[in-house]
């Protein structure tokens, strides 16, 4: 899988400022570039055929944070050509007022604890693909870029896997932005 990291322009400019400050002051505390979390076992629930023109699915993975500060996964961008035009969202699954497990958009991102990890899995956190324009066959790969709260990004490749669950109901009551009830 591709786990090459890319430091955003914002991250680079911070480093540049820090180096400039060091040059000026000469004895300022060392400032290092922001660290990109690592991703492993990245997979996406396969969508062998588009159903009723309302196809969606979730991406799952384990994220590790080697730093001493919490980092949040705040967003993701699809980089697979022609797969969707809708922005991706980070979702969580919660119990709604009726006691049902439903998914909603995550507020403030998915926390990767300092010196720890978080696993996105069915029934929990996931990155949501909306309005798929083509199927995702079992065994094919999808590429996306993860975006983190410290300004770093990470390109990942998700392998499409068949699984029976990961069918959480989308609850419009639990998410102000939601408008319909769907499966993914």
């Amino acid at each position, binding site marked *: 899988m591709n786990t090459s990291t890319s430091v955003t322009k914002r991250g680079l400019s911070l480093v540049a400022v820090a180096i400039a400050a060091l040059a000026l002051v000469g004895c300022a505390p060392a400032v290092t570039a922001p660290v990109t979390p*690592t991703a492993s076992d990245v997979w996406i629930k396969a969508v062998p055929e588009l159903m009723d023109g309302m196809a969606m699915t979730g991406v*799952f993975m384990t994220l590790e944070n080697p730093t001493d500060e919490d980092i949040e996964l705040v967003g993701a961008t699809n980089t697979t050509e022609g797969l969707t035009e809708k922005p991706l969202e980070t979702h969580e699954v919660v119990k709604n007022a009726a006691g049902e497990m439903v998914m909603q958009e995550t507020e403030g991102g998915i926390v990767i604890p300092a010196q720890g990890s978080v696993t996105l899995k069915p029934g929990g956190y996931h990155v949501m693909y909306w309005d798929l324009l083509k199927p995702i066959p*079992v*065994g094919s790969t999808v590429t996306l870029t993860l975006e983190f709260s410290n300004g770093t990004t990470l390109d990942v490749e998700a392998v499409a*896997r*068949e*699984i*029976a*669950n990961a069918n959480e109901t989308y609850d419009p009551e639990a998410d102000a932005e939601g408008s319909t009830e769907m499966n993914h």
Partner: protein
Amino acid sequence: MSPHTPPKTDDSSRVSRRGFLLTAGVATGALAVGAVGVTAAVNNGTTGPAVAPGATEVVPFYGVHQAGIDTPPQSSGTFLGWTLKPGTDRETVRRMMRLLTDDAARLTQGEAALPDNDPYLATNPARLTATFGFGPGFFQKLGLSAEAPAGFAELPAFSIDKLQPEYSGGDLLIQLGSDDPLTLSHAVRQLTRTARSFATVAWSQSGFTRDQGTAPAGQTGRNLFGQVDGTVNPRRADEFAAQVWATGSPSWFDGGTSMVLRRIEMNLDTWDKLDEGAKELSVGRKLSNGAPLTGENEFDAPDLAAKDASGLHVIPTFAHMRRAKTDNPHEKFLRRPLNYDDGIHADGRTNAGLLFAAYMANIKTQYVPVQQRLSDLDLLNTWTTPIGSAVFALPPGCQAGGYIGEGLLA
């Protein structure tokens, strides 16, 4: 980043396949028994009691050959035959084999598959192996018939056969074995979930043999007739190289092997009518320890010329052992059978027999002549009936990042 986490077990708890071969050749000469404990003792340099095979014992997945062939037989095994879905092309099969390889590489090392809804069932591999093979239909459907291994084809029809389609044929083989039946069931389920996106199941056959921890030391395993079965197997690495591993025909198949799987129904009820002497004459070996009727111990060479006081051959002309035995080095192969016992038929007959799995470099030159002799004359045919038959080409092993069959499909 490697997609596979390194195995968590330490090296001392592993039985390497090479270690097994060396150990079996030196110490016991037995394929089915004792290897784990003996290897542990050798590795530790101690003479203490043999260590029972552990739940976390791991057989390496990656290597020159696929695991599950020269691996000492596990106590439980399942063979799954699959039919590729219509319209399956080479690109689709590449995806399938990549996913199956990934599942196998994880599960055999005691890790959950990706994904796995029951990850806690994956933690006791107990020597789990997963082995893959391609049937004649696989080569035909993918336009790869010219790449089929030398001598690889469906077996000719034998007069003794009463083959049933529900136990015969198949485009893809998944062979699984473990010393823990729960682990085996979980692995079957995970690999089935992956395979069924690409293929439909043709048959599923499960069997068993004695657990390595309870089998008598120094003796080959027994079948349901009580016979010691598999005495003449290759054991040393040079014997495997000569009999089992293919070379140069074609080159992508180097380190692979061909497999014959025969489901042989055994009529335990009519076998029960024989006394011990008649049973021994049918095979030419003693039931007590598998020794030839002309010898004392299992691995004694039989004397086929020996006659008794009345001038009859001590090992009869119709005996299974005489009919199967050959001095032709090209007619030898590995037998790795499992017993099956699927309960009792509605009419009261036992539904039991042997999943006879044999592995050889070339089916046509090594296996067919032996099977033909047994079909022509073998007293054991009185109590046995082949009811299923399939052949598969088992590609060589692969390294991390690769997949089984890549030499053919890439």
